[in-house]
């Protein structure tokens, strides 16, 4: 069985982001970029499944500018067998990404597609679900535990939902999106980094995959949330009441 893992290159989780002065988006110049943490978890799970003998190959795919190759190299250094880079300089929204992944799935024929539950830059939490819908495959999102049954071709997945944990059984092929508690991703070790240098990364374009990338959503403006105002010391209860009434309008 082949596992396809989608990984996204995002602004590093620990970086303090700033909005660009022209309000077109977040400033990504000169900030540290790395693999989306949920995608790391997805890749780690795929690798563990392969190491348990349930899969033959783990393929990492990333969609974006040329620097995505770095992210794919990280994936290869963790242990993925090969990478696919769909090169584009446009920033795509989840639906377009889902269409691209659908095309790829039709080419690669994986038994499982793993994605992170959401990307930390847009927090959309849509791509995995859309891929499953486009492919007509079952989906198990927010996975906190995945157990495969090779003979029956099913996966039993514990999902983290608002009310607690829900256990689903899905037929393969399926789409699984990963949540934080699923696993702790491995570090990229030097021997693996060395092996990764000889692993192939295939370059593709959206035209190759015959995907219509026209988006029906246009981002108009990105602004920072209003800054928290500092507190004010009041000198008496009367002043407090006056402020509550006239400034905060809560009394």
């Amino acid at each position, binding site marked *: 069985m082949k596992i396809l893992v989608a990984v996204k290159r995002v602004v590093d989780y620990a970086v303090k982001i700033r909005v660009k002065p022209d309000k077109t988006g977040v400033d990504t110049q000169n900030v540290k970029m790395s693999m989306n943490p949920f995608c790391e978890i997805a890749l780690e799970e795929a690798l563990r499944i392969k190491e348990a003998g349930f899969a033959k190959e783990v393929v990492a795919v990333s969609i974006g500018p040329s620097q995505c190759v*770095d992210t794919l190299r990280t994936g290869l250094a963790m242990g993925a067998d090969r990478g696919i880079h769909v090169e584009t300089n446009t920033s795509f929204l989840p639906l377009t990404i889902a269409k691209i992944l659908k095309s790829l799935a039709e080419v690669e024929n994986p038994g499982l597609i793993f994605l992170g539950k959401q990307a930390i830059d847009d927090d959309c939490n849509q791509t995995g679900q859309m891929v499953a819908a486009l492919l007509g495959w079952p989906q198990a999102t927010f996975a906190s535990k995945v157990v495969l049954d090779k003979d029956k071709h099913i996966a039993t997945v514990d999902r983290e939902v608002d009310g607690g944990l829900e256990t689903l059984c899905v037929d393969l092929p399926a789409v699984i999106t990963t949540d934080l508690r699923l696993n702790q991703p491995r570090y990229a*070790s030097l021997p693996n980094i060395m092996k990764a240098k000889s692993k192939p990364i295939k370059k593709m374009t959206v035209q190759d995959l015959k995907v219509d990338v026209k988006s029906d959503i246009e981002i108009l403006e990105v602004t920072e949330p209003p800054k928290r105002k500092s507190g004010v010391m009041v000198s008496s209860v009367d002043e407090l009441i006056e402020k509550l009434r006239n400034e905060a309008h809560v009394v």
Partner: protein
Amino acid sequence: MMMQRLRRSEEFIRFGCESLINLRPNKNSVPRSVSGFVTHYDTKGKLFESNVGNHYNTHRCLGRNLGMLQQYKCFGSSSASQIERKPLFSSLDSKDVSSFKEILGDKNVVEDEERLETANTDWMKKYKGSSKLMLLPKNTEEVSQILQYCDSRRLAVVPQGGNTGLVGGSVPVFDEVIINVGLMNKVLAFDEVSGVLVCEAGCILENLATFLDTKGFIMPLDLGAKGSCHIGGNVSTNAGGLRLIRYGSLHGTVLAVTANGNVLDMLGTLRKDNTGYDLKHLFIGSEGSLGIVTKVSILTQPKLSSVNLAFIACKDYLSCQKILVEAKKNLGEILSAFEFLDNNSMDLVLNHLDGVRNPVSSTENFYILIETTGSDETNDREKLEAFLLKSLEKGLVSDGVIAQDINQASSFWRIREGITEALQKAGAVYKYDLSLPVEEIYNIVNDLRRRLGELANVMGYGHLGDGNLHLNISAADYNDKLIGLIEPYVYEWTSKHRGSISAEHGLGVMKANEIFYSKSPETVAIMASIKKLLDPKGILNPYKVLPHSLFSH
């Protein structure tokens, strides 16, 4: 204020608790700074005599009034050296207090016992003075007036900043008046082209770093105490930290200081100025004994976006040295940190801290952290990988990992910096901060291990890139036999190899009498002359830095 509150709650917990409480201000702050914190903790060299028992961490250096003669017995010293209060110093009287109030205003003359309690005690709760007065000047002019008054009245003073030093240099020994520059905390100027920052001495290092961050710059130094320490104190103690390997010491980055022994205004922002003797160097590292730094002009560095961190394992110390040489050659201008720790340190951390795991899958004898900082992400990453892979092939490195994001990097640093915390949890600890030739660094660890045998666990780690070892001895309890075996053996060993008994923390009151292990008598005599020249009455931070024998009249 935060530190004071922390200390108050510590008062309650302390009596029930055997282990030293971790007073680290920012547990979850960016790793590198906390690493530097480790160096600050490490100079608790001399340790406690057994009669202190369970309350070793509550002992104070007692000052007992025997009539006019006040004695100071510090349990921390193995030679139980007794310092005597110099009878020549005047005692504070009410006229002095009112004169100070005239200069500073009522609010900034502190006689409140609670605040004095905090100001009298050092960060490690190892040294405590009995000052009755703390002054908070707001500007250089006020500092100058206070000092002139104290000089005329022969009142001893202690300059104080963030009070995070580890050698008892920032707190009074007896009743010296505390001059705390905490109110002088303004940034005066910042030139975005040259990167020169001019600020008052009471600016907290972390605040400066935050300010610079918005401008795209960084401070040239970084240490664990940055949430509390003042730049004036950093300069006065020539603080080291993690960025030393990359940006050099404060002697190189500080452009000028205003110091007020007798009002020396040398404040300038020029990068190059060869007009006469460069006196600022006297004040950098003199620990407040030659003058009080009131303003600092410092060269800051642009913030670079590409930071990479590798955690590698080696079989022996010789490999560590070779890797250091190779790293400097191959990583060159992007190398920004090079730290090492031995297996005992790693075990200690894994045993005593939660949520840490060994980044490399195998257990080895030595681990090294290599950090690079540069402007080109892809280029730096390739350079680091190429260097590490070559080292792997040559057999210098047996295993290693490279952090793929900032979180992984934090977890690597957590191991290196967690050693201090782990040491505290493990029981009694004797800390030494030594500078040695790189090839000798681990020999002292091995020698001490042989010497102490089963009595204690010896750990070695530190800034390998700077030749700075943090030697730590961990035992179940403090005991005389152990300290007798450690001191003066460690100092003599260091001295024999022409090392320094205090690499970064300074001498303070803790090592004031040990300077001869690292400096010749002739050199120290000249230091004493300079001290007499700049501070004839000896009122600035007495009993510290230089041996007491030089000043007994």
